Every structure is written in C-alpha cells, then in structure tokens.
C-alpha cells in the first residue's frame, strides 16, 4: 500500500542557483487534463502518469504553507479520481530545492498553539494521503529536502528526526530514505540544471509507470543479509514492552545529556514516537500536532526562528557588488588564524598567497591547511583529487613576490600595533592601488592600525574566529575613512569563504570582543570568589553556552585574554573591572596559556578525552582570593552575573552605534561567542525575557559590586516602556 518512492538527486550546483534562467519554469502540457492554473502546484499528464510540479512563485525555495497544502490536496484529489492516471510523480521546478520545509512566516503569523496544531494536522492529512495513496507516487527530489518536505516523499528515520542534521544523497540511499539516485548531468542540449530536472522527471516517470504496472516492487531491497537480519531482530525486540521502555529511557537520557534540557523539541519528539508506538498511529498523529503547536509557541522556537532569519540576512551583501572582484588573496602570517583563513579561501577557488617570516612557521601553516582539507577527504566530503586542486590554490612564500597582483591582503600577524604598522607599510609598498588591506585583529582599533596607511580608505578590519574553518562568524570593522567599496569587497570575500557576516563600527574591542571582555572579567572574579572552574563550566553550559566559561578562557588563550582585558580595561575603566588581572598574569608567568600550551585551568593531553583540572592554578587563585557575597552568589546569580554583563554591553554597543542592528548583535553573539542559541542572542533575550527583569537583576548586582553592573540607557528605556522591543 505504501507506494511513495523517492528519486533523489545529488545537488552539487548550489553555487549556480542564482544563475538559472527563469524561462523554463512554466511549461504547459498538451495533454494536460487540468489547465486550471494554481499558484504553487500544477500538474500535467504524460501517458498515464501525472506529473505534479511544485513551484512557489517569487521565491528561491518551495515551502509548505497553507496555500500549498490546499492546492496539493486539490491536485491529489484530481489525480486519484481520474481514470486516465495510474501513477504520479512529484517534482519541484526549482533547481536545487524540492521543499525546504514549513513556511516560517506561516508559523510566525500564528498567535496561539491551536492555530499551529491545526496547520500541523492539515499537513499530516496531506502526508497521510500521500502515504495511503492507492496510486503509486514517486517523489523526485533535486536538492534540499527538509522537514515536511522530506515527509512528503519519505518516512523519516529515528536518528534524523532528532538532530535535524543534513544527509548527503548517497547516505540517504544507504539509509533507505530514498530508493534511487540520479546523478546531475553536465552540459548537453540544454543548461545542465535544466536538463537534470527534465531527466529526473523522465526517470521518475519510468519508475511511476513501473510501479503502476507492478514491474517494479516498492519494497526496498535489503542489500546485505546482515542488514536484513538486524532489521528483523530490531523489530522483534521492539515488540517486547520491557525492551521498548529501556530504549525510550536510553534515548531520553542521551537527549537530555545533549540538550541539557534547554531545547524542548527532542524530548517531545520522543514522547510522540512513544505515543505512536504504544497507542497507535492516530493517537501518535494527534499528539504530534498538539506538541508541534505547543513547541511553536515556546521562547526557544521564537529564538531559533529569529536566528534563522538573522543568519539569512547576514549571508547577504548589503553593500552591493565591489568594483573589482577579489581573485588573488594574500595572507600575512601562517599562524593558526592565517592558515585557517587560507583554508577557507583555497577551497572556494581563491588564489591565495600565504606569507610568513620563517620557513618553519610557513610549513606549519601549510600543513594546517592540508590537514584541514585532508580531514574532509577522510569524511568523504572531498575527493583526494579535489583536495589536491584546492591545495594548489595556495602559494606559500617568505617574500612579497606576487603581491603586486593581490586584490586583497589580510594580515594575521601577532597582535602588536608596531608590528602591524610595520607590515602595513611593507605591504603598501608592493600592492597595487586597488588592493584592500584587511587586518585580522580581535582588539586593536582599526583606525590606529590605519594611522600609518597612505590609503586609509582601503583599510578595514576582518575579525575571524578560531578555529576559522569551524566558526561561522566574520566580524567586519569599518573606520570612518573606510570606503563603501572596500567594505563591499570584504563582505564579498567573507561570503565566498562561507561566513555569516556582521559589519560593525570601529572602536576598542569592536562588538564581539567588547561584549566578551566584561563577562570574562566576571569569570575571573567568580573564580577568585572560590567557585571552581568545573563548577563554573557546568553553570555556564547548563545555561546554554556551548563552551564553559573557564574552558573558554583556555580556548581563547590566557595571554590573549589578558592582552584584551588590559587593553579594554584601560579604555573603558571601571565598567570592565571585576576580576583581578593578576590571576591571568600569574598563569602566564607559569606558562599556563590555555589549550595551546597544554595547560590552563585544565590540563590538555593528546588523546585524553576527560580533561583534568590544573591544580597548580589553585595556588594562584588562593593567593588572590576575594570574599564572596552570599546574596549574589547563588548558582542562578552567578549565571546571571555573567549573562547580564554581556547583554548590557551588547545593548550599549547598539546604543553607541557600534552595531547597526540588533540582528547583527544577536548573530555575532551566538555564532562568534557561543551565546546560548536557545536564547536567540542578547537582544532577542531582552525581548523574550523582559528588559525590566534584566534591569532589576543588574540593579541588584550593582548594589553589590558597583558600576560594572549599571544598566545602560537603552536598556533602561526598554524596561520603562514595555512596548519597546528590539524585534517588532
């Protein structure tokens, strides 16, 4: 009875999505039985196969909205009632996208959980109709197929429901999610994307015909005897209630551990599955729609949807196309950052020069790039040949040869103003007029670096986060003299490197470092007050930070933290005070620089998973011990002391115009600093938690510690007028 099959297609032309021409999307069929034009879904009949095309107008992707639901049901009813039609093919007319999931706007528009539940039930009915169809339906999927989109075509697997991770087409085939793969075609009689969709449709039609004629059996073949055996065994085991209970328990435990109870959805999914198995599918469906409705109304859901929108915004270049495309990039300094920047550049086809002063340092950097690419080969994300081709885009050198052709130079030398001045002057002597000079610094003000430049309009800050190939954020810093074209160029390169970009105004610590610094200062104070690093880490991670606060200091590097704290402390004075700098200085003097030196608050050993505390730090902390204040030292207070200082500084950045929009503030904090994603970023947090409550907390801590906790004016404004929101 279940007759839905999927024909998936490896999508490897995501980059060319924008290039497609719109001319071929609407095609009419001579034998179409229903020429009634619908907005999203149309169908034609080829022989005895109905070809149902999904194509939401004016959008790059198809999403499941109410109109789509109703049109889909209409079309399916016609398909089922027609005698001429014996099977159907479901396909998207958009290259690279089948259905990207539910329409977020539709969900956002709902004000109650009942509304969402109703939408969910409509969708369920749609999926159920497809599943119970008496006529075989083949889903021909080209490109992204997410969430509800996947449900339209295929029954989802346990693992995937929970984590929502991406699955490549070949893996989907192995998992049994799809039945056949169609490889994308190259150029032929038409542009590749266009012909690939046609071909996918042709193949899907043969499958649909074969299914209707019973020439192909819808049963999925079990490749290996073992797989078959295991499946049988699993299904037998699942029929024993006791075993089931154990499995639920185990899964729940695992989920709780992973989510720390911060994300409600995974646990509810388990509930739904449990209901479905224990009480039958009707109860399961009902429970699913209700839970979905409840979830859509949660703060977490709003926070995450906000982040999704913000991320989409920060993946656009609002400064327009630069006058000259950057093709030749040069990076100064082959350290961790320089090599990381090189890695994310060469695999995007940018010709990249990596320059360092010594052969040893250069070699280490080149090896880092190679290892980064090779790791992808091991994970089968790249072929060894692609790795070699990408690696050939990298030129390692000790001199300035070829800089005369560079379109952009990114310096990632040591954080020392005089050194940066030196390389800036050296580079400006060799680069062409149009070349942009970008500085990868986390704290040195760009205008101070640009002070020695002959062409300050070409100087900009590009603050990458470590490890560059993993961290998505790029913070671009413009001075008053930086030209718009220079900014456009920097954003363009960042986007090419796959980054999510925020553009902020120059100032000490820019945005990200400036928010982090007061929080770090608080971290040190809390440690000095006698809370151990492990305890502090667990308090911060249970609040939603992906990395514990003490571990974060180790990751950033104790010397870097001290450097920043000192610098910003000098500029901002008392507001950045709190913990004593002596703690960091003491650690540096003993060589505890964090992960990179093997010791920080923790001891890091190759191959050892559970890191141990570095007991040598205890004496440093003991000698600098501060008395703790019991009324502001509960676990919750400690969490909020950290978070409110962060949030207050972020709002101040918006108030001072360092940030242009709250969205950029949220994206920067979540993607660059690991601000809890479940809270959506500092600004979303203020909106959802309530500005008044935050101000109240700040006042309480202000009473204990003074000016460091004084709420900024903008935050006070928001607290005093409850209608004021960062997001309307």
């Amino acid at each position, binding site marked *: 009875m279940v007759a839905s099959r999927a024909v998936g297609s490896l999508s490897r032309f995501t980059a060319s999505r924008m290039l497609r021409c719109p001319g071929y999307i609407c095609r009419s069929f001579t034998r179409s039985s229903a020429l009634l034009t619908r907005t999203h879904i149309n169908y034609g009949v080829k022989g005895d196969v109905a070809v149902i095309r999904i194509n939401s107008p004016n959008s790059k992707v198809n999403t499941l909205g109410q109109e789509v639901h109703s049109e889909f049901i209409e079309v399916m009813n016609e398909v089922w009632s027609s005698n001429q039609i014996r099977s159907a093919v479901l396909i998207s007319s958009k290259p690279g996208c089948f259905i990207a999931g539910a329409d977020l706007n539709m969900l956002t528009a709902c004000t109650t959980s009942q509304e969402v539940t109703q939408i969910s039930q409509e969708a369920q009915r749609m999926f159920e109709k497809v599943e119970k169809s008496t006529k075989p339906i083949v889903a021909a999927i080209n490109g992204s197929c997410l969430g509800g989109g996947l449900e339209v075509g295929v029954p989802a697997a346990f693992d995937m429901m929970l984590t929502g991770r991406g699955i490549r087409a070949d893996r989907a085939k192995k998992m049994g999610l799809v039945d056949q793969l169609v*490889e994308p*075609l*190259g150029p032929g*009689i038409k542009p590749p994307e266009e012909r690939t969709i046609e071909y996918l449709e042709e193949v899907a039609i043969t499958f649909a015909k074969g299914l209707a004629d019973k020439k192909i059996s819808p049963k999925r073949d079990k490749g290996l005897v073992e797989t078959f055996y295991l499946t049988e065994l699993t299904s037998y085991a699942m029929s024993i209630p006791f075993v089931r209970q154990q499995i639920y328990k185990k899964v729940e435990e695992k989920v709780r551990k992973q989510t720390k109870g911060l994300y409600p959805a995974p646990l509810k999914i388990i509930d739904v599955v449990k209901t479905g198995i224990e009480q039958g599918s009707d109860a399961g469906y009902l429970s699913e729609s209700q839970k979905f409705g409840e979830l859509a109304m949660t703060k977490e859901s709003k926070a995450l949807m906000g982040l999704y929108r913000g991320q989409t915004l920060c993946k656009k270049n609002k400064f327009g196309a630069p006058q000259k495309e950057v093709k030749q990039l040069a990076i100064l300094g082959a350290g961790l950052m320089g090599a990381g920047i090189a890695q994310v550049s060469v695999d995007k086809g940018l010709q990249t020069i990596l320059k360092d002063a010594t052969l040893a340092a250069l070699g280490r950097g080149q090896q880092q790039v190679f290892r980064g690419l090779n790791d992808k080969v091991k994970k089968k994300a790249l072929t060894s*040949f692609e790795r070699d081709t990408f690696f050939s885009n990298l030129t390692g050198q000790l001199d300035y040869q070829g800089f005369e052709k560079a379109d952009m130079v990114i310096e990632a030398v040591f954080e020392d103003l005089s050194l940066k001045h030196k390389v800036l002057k050296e580079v400006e002597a060799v680069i062409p007029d149009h070349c942009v000079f970008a500085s990868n610094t986390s704290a040195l003000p760009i205008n101070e670096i640009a002070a020695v430049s002959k062409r300050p309009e070409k100087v900009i800050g590009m603050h990458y986060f470590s490890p560059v190939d993993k961290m998505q954020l790029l913070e671009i810093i413009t001075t008053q003299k930086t030209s718009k074209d220079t900014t456009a160029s920097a954003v363009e390169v960042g986007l090419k490197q796959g980054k999510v970009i925020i553009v902020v105004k120059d100032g000490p610590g820019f945005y990200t470092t400036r928010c982090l610094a007061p929080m770090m200062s608080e971290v040190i104070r809390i440690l000095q007050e006698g809370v151990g690093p492990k305890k502090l880490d667990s308090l911060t991670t249970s609040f939603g930070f992906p990395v514990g606060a003490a571990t974060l200091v180790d990751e950033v590097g104790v010397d870097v933290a001290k450097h920043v704290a000192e610098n910003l402390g000098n500029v901002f004075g008392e507001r950045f005070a709190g913990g004593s700098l002596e703690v960091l200085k003491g650690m540096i003097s003993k060589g505890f620089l964090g992960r990179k030196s093997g010791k920080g608050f923790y001891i890091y050993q190759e191959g050892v998973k559970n890191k141990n505390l570095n007991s040598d730090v205890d004496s440093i902390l003991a000698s600098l011990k501060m008395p703790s204040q019991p009324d502001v030292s509960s676990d919750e207070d400690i969490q909020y002391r950290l978070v409110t200082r962060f949030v207050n500084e972020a709002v101040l950045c918006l108030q001072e115009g360092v940030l242009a929009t709250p969205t950029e503030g949220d994206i920067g904090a979540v993607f660059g600093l690991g601000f809890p994603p479940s809270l959506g970023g500092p600004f979303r947090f203020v909106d959802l938690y309530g500005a008044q409550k935050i101000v109240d907390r700040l006042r309480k801590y202000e009473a204990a510690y003074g000016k460091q906790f004084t709420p900024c004016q903008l935050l006070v404004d928001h607290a005093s007028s409850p209608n004021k929101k960062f997001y309307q």
Partner: protein
Amino acid sequence: MWTIFKVFIEFVNNTASVLCFCVFFCPRGMWDRSSLTGIQPAPPALEAVQAKSKQTLAKPNMRNIVVVDGVRTPFLLSGTSYKDLMPHDLARAALSGLLHRTSVPKDVVDYIIFGTVIQEVKTSNVAREAALGAGFSDRTPAHTVTMACISSNQAMTTAVGLIASGQCDVVVAGGVELMSDVPIRHSRKMRKMMLDLSKAKTLGQRLSLISQFRLNFLSPELPAVAEFSTNETMGHSADRLAAAFAISRLEQDEYALRSHSLAKKAQGEGLLSDVVPFKVPGKDTVTQDNGIRPSSLEQMAKLKPAFIKPYGTVTAANSSFLTDGASAVLILAEEKALAMGYKPKAYLRDFVYVSQDPKDQLLLGPTYATPKVLEKAGLTMNDIDAFEFHEAFSGQILANLKAMDSDWFAQNYMGRKAKVGSPPLEKFNIWGGSLSLGHPFGATGCRLVMATANRLQKEGGQYGLVAACAAGGQGHAMIVEAYPK
C-alpha cells in the same frame, strides 16, 4: 638533383597559377614518377564531388609526411586467443606484419614509437621490447607514449613531429593493448611491508615487521577502471552524457547495430585490408576480428544497463568491449618514400589535441577537436569524404554528433559563433568502428588512420577526418589526405 626537385614541388604545390607553366615545361617522365600532389586537374573520381575549399593541404617550407601503409593484428575480445600472450608479443606481431607488408629494410627505420594504456610493468617501454623481438636493428631507438584511447594517435603525431622537424625520415608508429592480462598489485600496505622487509638487516627487525602483518594486506589492488580525478567510471559518464543529450536507449542500440552490420559487411567484402594474420604460439592462426556480432534490436533491448542501474541506457551491447590487439603504421617523409620507390597511401596533415572537463564532458573530445582541425586546415565539413571517429559508446558518438550540430552548445561551451555541423552518416565509419571491430585502447588510433586512408583510396575521396575521445577529458582530430593515384 633531389633537392632541386623538392623545391620545385613545393613551389608548384603552393602556386596554382604556375600550374600551366609547370605542365608546359615539365619533362614527361617526371610527371609519371613524381607526386605533384593534388595539382592534377581534378581526378576523375572526384569530378562528381563538389569542389574542395583547398586543392591540397601541403604547406610551404614544410615537409610532406606520408603513410606508406599500416597493419594491425586481428582485434579480439579479451580472454580469447591472445589471453596467454604478453603485450610486446602482440606489438611484435604488428611490427612483423608491417615489415612483411611494406618490405621496409629494418635498418632504414630511424625510430619506433608505440602507444599503450595499461602498462605491463615488465615491459614498460613496450616499443623497445617489441622492436628488438621483431628483429629491428638494436641501433633503432624506441619509446612508448600514453594518452589513454588516443595513445597511438600520439605515437603517430610524435612521428610527424620528428619528421617535420627534420630529425627523422622513417618512423614506425603503433599501439598495443592486452586487456586479457592486467597488472594486479599487492595492496600499498603489503608492498610497504615487503619493501621494508627487503631492507631489514636483523632477524629482530624482520620479525617486528612481520608481526605488523594483517590479513587485509592481502586484498589486491586492481587497475583503476575509473577516472582518477573524478572517480567516475567511463561508462557511467557516458550514460550521463547520453542523458544530457537526451539520447534514448533505442537510438543507442540502433547505432550499435549499424556499427556491427557495417563491420560485418566490410569484413565479408574483404575491405579490412589492414588486418594481418597472426599465428598465435600454441594456437591456430587468427585471421579476423572476433567481436563483430550483429544482433537484433529486440535482443539488444533485453540487456540490463551496465553502469547506471536500473534506469541507465548504456549496456554491454552499445559499448565497445575490452579488446586485445596491436597496430603499426609506416610513416615517412614524402621524398624519402618516393626515393625508396614507395607508393604512399596518404598524407598526414593538420592535427589537434583538445581537452575539457573530465567530469561532465569526458567523452566530448571529437566535438571540440573537429571544428578546430578543420579551421586549422582551412577546410569545411563538406570537404571531408571520409569520417573515422572512435566509437567508445553509442551514446558517446551520438552525443558528439548532437553537440556538433548544436549552435547552443557551440556558443555556450566552445566559444564559437556557430555549430560546425554533424558529419553525414553515409560518410561516417562505414566499415564499422570500435563498437564492432573492437577497441584495444593503445592501438585504435592507427586503425582509424588506416581505415581513413584505405577508404579514401577505395572510394576516390581526397580528405578524411579522424577523431577520438580519451580518458582524462581529452580528444584528438587529424586530417588525412589521400595520396593521389
């Protein structure tokens, strides 16, 4: 005397207006034995054919290079009569056949070049081993070239280069492939251990190395059947190519059937005169190709797709099969050939090599090479009397024909203003092709050139065009001009 004569020829060849002059002043005897190529008033056979864009492709100050003749062993399905041979045995058979056919004195040959693809490691310079065995002078140097399916084309054009630059006068070019036996290696881990063992000095070192041995070291490494850069097999790429050009299974089967039928006919009529019998040691003498098997469309339709399963269109019946075989041609400077009293079969004229995307355009070499070589020679499609294209797959041939006939493809992918047009089928591979005759990778190029030369001689045509695709996304085309009768 000879040099004066040569200058004279070149002079005349390039100046049509002096035709009357030379006819008028030439001693009669000279006309008879010389080769005043293509300047004869249109030969009778060509009278019906439309006038050519150029009367000849001879170029000023360039030596004319001719093919005197060429031979090949019968091409056999791998695993049949040649299965116990080594590649140099086959190559030697081709060389011996050429010596016999042309009676060229062995010590006159300046150089020998062979093409091959899957190398037998024991005879990595298979040209040298074959030449020595065939009794060529041990003073005749030989080297081996490789360029996938156009390896022997590369051998021939290398010969052209050597002669044109004045380094050689007489060169033997050929190709060989023995797919019945391919080098299967130990795994890298096993090889490493064995090499380390050979360097180990003490018993302890040996034992510690042996202790690292794992059973999986024994799993062998087969020669790659896939494109190294993309990891895609050629058949898979051909299937995608056919789909990109919307070529149906039926069209492919029909083309394959055509190839087999034409080959059968040519074989029956004795047109495949380049084939020389080969007495295989311990076996019967092989006299003809054994892969020619015309079938019916119904039977071909029953086959399952070989690469993209279950919905692909490339099957065993519409693909070229794994083949054993060798070929060789004798290439000379024209004046040398004439001095030695030969009556050459053809001139080797302009040639090109092209390369493109090895993933999506792996087999489109002929599409890129054909317009380029025509342009270089100053000819058009209409000037060509005989087309010989390498048939890797029906789908590949049909895709190339469609691509050459597409303005859209020419404009968007080849940077040309318009299509070159597709060759008329009545002039195209009419004595069969690689699909039916077989395709020993390294040897096919010489077969194509000899088929062209023989067809031009037989049909009285003047220009022939050879084209082929090759792994790595490369391609080749060459113009062959008939030697006037």
